[in-house]
């Protein structure tokens, strides 16, 4: 016999250890969250997901409260709704109420939820006491304290998914902020610039420096799903494209749970894309002129040139004078073809892949 938790009158079965949120999600009951991510230990900090539980004097966070047999849970009462409005008004007063300013780059989950659930009113903005790290010289990520809701998604991600722990909650109370040790630049810490902290941030407090500079909000960009070609893992990435200028503005990761990379990327996939529009980028093959200069050529001509050169070297110095090394950007299939080329095409076992140390 399986156990049920009763959410808004629906009997929902659950696995031992599951939270109310997990059970509700399965039954497609919507509970809004701001500090929850399926990859992370819940923090219970934003208080957006509070629900009523029969027998409990206080409302409880669905993101961390464990489901129990025959527990009666209500997610739609006026008390629950009043709390949602309260929390959203709080966060708005503590960040930036003007949505256009807030969403200069990344979308704001607070404003999205406020649209759905409403607020308790526009409260006088809080005079903020969080400090940032204006002297952080890294080129990719900036932290904007005026947008931070201290959900700790970034620090938990860095710790629990990346296992890097480059950033931390620092200070206390109103002064609590996100920092590195001694407020150093990310590049002077263990940070791997994976950008996961940017990705999990619900407010754009952790943000892509270049995209902010570019100046077009993410919601005005078109997302094009593609496969990262920096290595063979096959991470799915979304190119965020300014269609008017036909430019990639930034790369984001698809939501966790939807693709093989589960929302994660590395520094290359997320940030190493400025080559795409770089003026020095090669867009056609080049072959060398007898005088030493380079000229544009077709693929056929260039590949012929390569084949001839390799055959000549093999004929002059023997088969094992050649060695083939494939790039770590290659997939398993490409690596297979490369060794086929070495062995069947050129008769040598000198084949290696640069990531196979």
């Amino acid at each position, binding site marked *: 016999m399986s156990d049920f938790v009763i959410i808004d009158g629906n009997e929902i079965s659950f696995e031992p250890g599951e939270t109310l949120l997990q059970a509700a999600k399965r039954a497609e009951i919507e509970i809004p969250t701001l500090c929850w991510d399926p990859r992370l230990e819940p923090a219970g*900090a934003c208080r957006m997901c509070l629900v009523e539980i029969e027998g409990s004097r206080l409302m409880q966070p669905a993101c961390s409260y464990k489901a129990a047999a025959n527990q009666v849970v209500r997610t739609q009462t006026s008390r629950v709704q009043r709390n949602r409005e309260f929390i959203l008004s*709080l966060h708005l007063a503590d960040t930036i109420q003007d949505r256009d300013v807030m969403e200069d780059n990344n979308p704001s989950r607070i404003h999205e939820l406020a649209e759905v659930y409403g607020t*308790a009113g526009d409260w006088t903005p809080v005079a903020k006491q969080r400090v940032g790290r204006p002297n952080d010289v890294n080129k990719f990520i900036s932290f904007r304290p005026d947008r931070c809701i201290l959900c700790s998604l970034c620090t938990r991600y860095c710790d629990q998914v990346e296992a890097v722990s480059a950033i931390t909650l620092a*200070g206390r109370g109103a002064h*609590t902020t996100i920092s590195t040790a*001694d407020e150093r630049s990310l590049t002077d810490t263990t940070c791997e610039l994976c950008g996961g902290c940017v990705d999990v941030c619900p407010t754009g407090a952790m943000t892509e420096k270049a995209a902010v500079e570019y100046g077009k909000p993410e919601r005005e960009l078109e997302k094009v799903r593609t496969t990262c070609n920096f290595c063979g893992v096959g991470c799915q990435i979304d190119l965020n494209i300014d269609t008017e200028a036909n430019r990639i503005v930034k790369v984001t990761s698809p939501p966790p749970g939807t693709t093989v990379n589960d929302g994660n990327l590395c520094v290359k996939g997320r940030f190493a894309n400025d080559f795409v529009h770089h003026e020095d980028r090669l867009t056609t093959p080049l072959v060398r002129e007898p005088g030493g200069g380079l000229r544009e050529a077709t693929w056929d001509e260039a590949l012929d040139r390569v084949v001839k050169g390799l055959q000549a070297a093999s004929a002059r110095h023997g088969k094992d004078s050649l060695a083939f090394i494939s790039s770590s950007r290659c997939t398993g299939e490409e690596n297979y073809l490369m060794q086929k080329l070495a062995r069947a095409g050129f008769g040598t076992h000198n084949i290696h892949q640069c990531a196979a140390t």
Partner: protein
Amino acid sequence: MEKKGARREAILEILHDRGGLREGVSKEVHQETGVPEADIYGVGTFYHLLSDPDAGVRVCQGLSCKLADSDGLKARFDAEGKKSCFTACLGRCDMAPAFWDPDDEPPLVECALSPSSDAHAIDLAAADGTGYEALARATERGPDWVIDELEASGLTGRGGAGFPAHIKWRAVRNQAETERYVVLNADEGEPGTFKDREVILRRPHLVVEGLAIAAFALEAREIYVYVRGEFGRVKRELAAAIERARELGVLDDSVAWHLVDGHGAYICGEETALLEALEGRRGMPRMKPPFPVEKGFRGKPTLIQNVESIACVPAILNRGGTWFQEAGRTQPGSKLYCMSGHVVRPGVYEAPMGVTMAELLEMAGGVVGTLKAFSPGGASSGFLPADQIDVAMDFAALPKVGSMLGSAGVVVLNDTVDMVEAALNQAVFFEDESCGQCAPCRIGTQILRQMLERYLASGRDASTLEIVDDVSWGMCEASICGLGQAAALPLTSAMKHFPREFGVGTG
């Protein structure tokens, strides 16, 4: 993520020994312990005695000290060129205006006490015997007898929540897990409260005996005592008493005793924040359930008890649970009440539980001036008007009038006090001491303080206070722990009882 074997529990003590968190220190401590450098920085910046080692003399800005012109004291230090800063209640309200110099702890003056009496369970004024009869009795009759006596006594926690002690003892004892801990909460920090300090200074053997009995009854092999960082002498007295009890042969080596320093964070008095501090983390309260009796220190069953609660245990076993039960008037036991603010003899007074404010005022020599209001149980209890002096000061009657007994840190206000200023003082306290973890408390405390400042700056324009109800509702409903849940009470209670001062009605 820290490496396996990283010595996280050691980092706060190491930071303390290094003189606090100066640049480069987190790297050194990281190399020494294996805990990530950023984590050490994050932990260090949480605790004010570590994060700002050069702040100089701490001047108390608790309400009782404010009433005694701590601003003037601070100005005097400034004039003398002595570096100083304001800090939350130092637990020296009887010596208002109090200050504390980390390099040169100021002596405690003799605190006024109720005269010794047979009716008192703790009896601060009596000599601190080293007979350890209750411990002998406990070992002779066994754990179940101890817990049954506790149950009969009706002892409820004296740290603020008033939770029945025997339920916690039994819950820990009944856990299948045999690695268990006893933790003494000596982080006394609730504004207006200084009883635990006096209990340890005057009756340290009662505390040692109570703890030894708890470890025996729960079959715990380790006892941790968490003493607030500003209580250096208190910790030394307790250490000396443990040493003495060892010499006397009443304590053997079957239980390990650890005395741990706090580092300047009121919130670490909250039991799960205290556990986080013991484990070398930022003192942010945990979500409950699970409760510490099931998953406490190191994730193991843990009994956490306040100093006064533990000190009641020997009397309960010596004189019987029923005796203790009957020692109270409206609820079980005698109780320590801390009197400060506008009273003639600030001090710690032991009285039957349920004594009235009128009686307490008499014990403390009466009000200086004319009584206007009082705060019955620390900042978290809010304010009551003078006409409530006949309410029983216990865990049941005070909530009925919108307040609570809390830690029984009673602050007395005379009619020279502006309730707006008093509410602002408490608002500043909660904002400074919020751990910052959850939004309702972190942001709510800022809103309340900033709102009161706008109210004063605007020449008392009541429209600045429009959203008090909404904000206080949410703080009370949605905060993770008792700090945020209670933080709006000083303001809302002051507004309720003194509406005119807040620009509403005619009251």
